[in-house]
């Protein structure tokens, strides 16, 4: 099997594997790459050329005007009109023409007749138009040209969304929702998981079977009753019905079945000996749990924490139902969805906002991928 392909130590089959995998990886990464590159581009370029051209100079058509009153006389008795059509630094002339329909008639440096003047447009945008007779005051001619714009990258879009689109506030709001909604369920679930794993009580099987059942209950089932309940509580006590406390508890509940399930499997898998020998030494279940089981369960707690963090950070539905849409409560996902509707064509705003919203999950994901994978495996291979 040591045949070589293109002189490389490859078999055709192996080459196919490389190419196939590369194709999939490209399809899977290009959309995100496009978003990221676009968010860094100048907003005018972003809407006139594809992001994949971002590294090449883009071309743009424009027009300049020559005015007779700017003319001057020179020593050798000729009359000259000088100027520069390009305003921005770094741009250059690709071609020019005297007629809008034929922009690429002449190359930079060519001398052509423009309304009786000998006109030359240089690559750097400067021009000279000369004449042997005085140039009349009311002389005005237009010249059309194609300019090359060098690739430019800018953080202006980010500055804009953070400063004036309210993304900074939404970012803080998302954190406000996410951190407590990740921490609260962990403690509650850990105690319950220990009880399910190591304590004896009537109905243990039944209650855990219910937890397994609740794992798949769609949260849509909870929305209407909870919305009514929150509204009633709000009306009864004269408090707002959309509060951070409300969404923390909702997220706690929705994450709890998975947390109890994952942790119970993990804690139940700890060696029986250590737990029983600690109990023989007179430790109560409470001591065993806090001194022994909790420290040993850190990896499982971390796995669940990552799950819950990503789930809460990325959630849209729960936030739409339980939080207001004012700037003091709107979260990133909700804000993005709103922008997709109202600013659908402002891609410089959408791309940079979206990237702000996915930045934190991506960082968490790449830093803690190992725990995340472990949690996924524990959550679905063993159970369902």
């Amino acid at each position, binding site marked *: 099997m040591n045949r070589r392909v293109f002189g490389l130590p490859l078999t055709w089959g192996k080459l196919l594997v490389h190419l196939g995998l590369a194709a999939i990886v490209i399809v899977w990464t290009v959309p995100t790459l496009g978003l990221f590159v676009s968010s860094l581009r100048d907003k005018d370029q972003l809407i006139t050329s594809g992001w994949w051209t971002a590294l090449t100079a883009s071309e743009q058509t424009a027009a300049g005007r020559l005015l007779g009153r700017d003319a001057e006389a020179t020593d050798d008795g000729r009359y000259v009109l000088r100027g520069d059509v390009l305003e921005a630094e770094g741009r250059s002339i690709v071609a020019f023409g005297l007629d809008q329909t034929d922009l690429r008639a002449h190359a930079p440096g060519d001398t052509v007749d423009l309304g009786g003047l000998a006109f030359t447009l240089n690559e750097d945008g400067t021009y000279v138009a000369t004449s042997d007779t005085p140039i009349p005051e009311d002389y005005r001619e237009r010249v059309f040209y194609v300019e090359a714009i060098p690739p430019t990258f800018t953080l202006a879009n980010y500055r804009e969304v953070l400063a004036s689109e309210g993304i900074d506030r939404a970012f803080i709001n998302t954190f406000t929702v996410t951190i407590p909604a990740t921490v609260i369920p962990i403690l509650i679930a850990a105690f319950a998981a220990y009880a399910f794993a190591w304590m004896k009580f009537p109905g243990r099987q039944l209650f855990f079977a219910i937890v*397994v059942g609740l794992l798949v209950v769609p949260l849509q089932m909870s929305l209407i009753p909870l919305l009514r309940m929150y509204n009633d509580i709000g009306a009864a006590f004269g408090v707002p019905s959309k509060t951070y406390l409300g969404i923390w508890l909702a997220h706690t509940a929705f994450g*709890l079945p998975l947390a109890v399930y994952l942790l119970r499997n993990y804690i139940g898998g700890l060696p029986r000996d250590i737990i029983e020998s600690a109990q023989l030494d007179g430790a109560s279940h409470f001591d065993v749990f806090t001194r022994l089981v909790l420290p040993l369960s850190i990896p499982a707690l971390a796995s669940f924490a990552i799950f819950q963090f990503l789930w809460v950070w990325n959630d*849209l539905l729960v936030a739409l139902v339980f939080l207001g849409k004012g700037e003091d409560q709107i979260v990133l996902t909700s804000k993005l969805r709103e922008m997709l509707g109202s600013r659908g064509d402002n891609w410089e705003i959408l791309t940079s906002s979206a990237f702000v919203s996915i930045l934190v999950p991506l960082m968490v994901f790449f830093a803690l991928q190992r725990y995340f994978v472990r949690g996924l495996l524990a959550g679905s291979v063993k159970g369902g």
Partner: protein
Amino acid sequence: MIEQVLSALLAVVAAIGASVTYFYGSNWLLDRLVADRRAPDGTYVSRQRARDAVRPWLFLAPALLVLGVYLVYPVVETLRLSFFGSNGDTFVGAANWTWAVQNEGVRTAVRNNVLWLLVVPSLSTVFGLLVATLADRVAWGNVAKSLVFMPMAISFVGASVIWKFVYDYRGAGSEQIGILNAVVVALGGEPQAWITVEPWNNFLLMVILVWIQTGFAMVILSAALRGVPEETIEAARIDGASDVAVFFRIIIPQIFSTILVVWTTITIVVLKIFDIVAAMTNGQWGTEVLANAMYNWMFRGGGHFGRGSVIALMIMIAVIPIMAYNIRRFREEEARR
């Protein structure tokens, strides 16, 4: 803003404090109230058994309370509300159910949900299996897996922005900035406003979820593939089986239960799909799905809780077989312990 950050931090501290106080406090109280003691005749009375009977419930109480209020009660309440009118006060019998059967929007949503169920779990599983298999054969496999896995971290809304940009449409003649239309134009086709083209727009929305879920399928299946005993593969090779035959006849049967798990897990995600449709089209152009219809009925015209409840129950009914299967499997596993 600083105030809000502080109040969030305070909430974290308060939440942890309250939990710790509850668990420590209740256990301390239990140990004090039901302490061992000396009987009047001087014998030592252990009340260990009494404490052991109570303590599990102290551990479980917060979890059971939250699950009861936020998940169990709402299931019953939603069932009740499905027989009531828009504000949940007047009994209307089966009116909401007959409405759901006849309503055009709900029908479209059901049709689309079925399409999603057919397409997304199967494509995600197939791509996941493909990547898992290929990545094990090349040196850069781990990088490839990491990149395919990455969309799992991106929110459905973020993914919608990413793909809406892929599908972006500019009028024919002007430069396309969406990569899909750019490819179409480069191949000599006409650019399209993709997300408005029925019924294909549904599939373009499904692509987004496949893009996200493939990483999940890949991770789980990749672990399962590593669990396939090398000897079974070797034995088949010695008998002259081709790579393809080994894959389909030896490997697939051995990881079939894992494939089922992946399939059902993605199925549940698909049944509840909301964010992608809400962000991309909000159900326009024939892309409605049940969860989005339900959300809209919760708030449309002040909200119709009866109709919303019926749609939620339709999703629930679809989940019940999976739920029953999970519970049965759990009981079997317990019996074996």
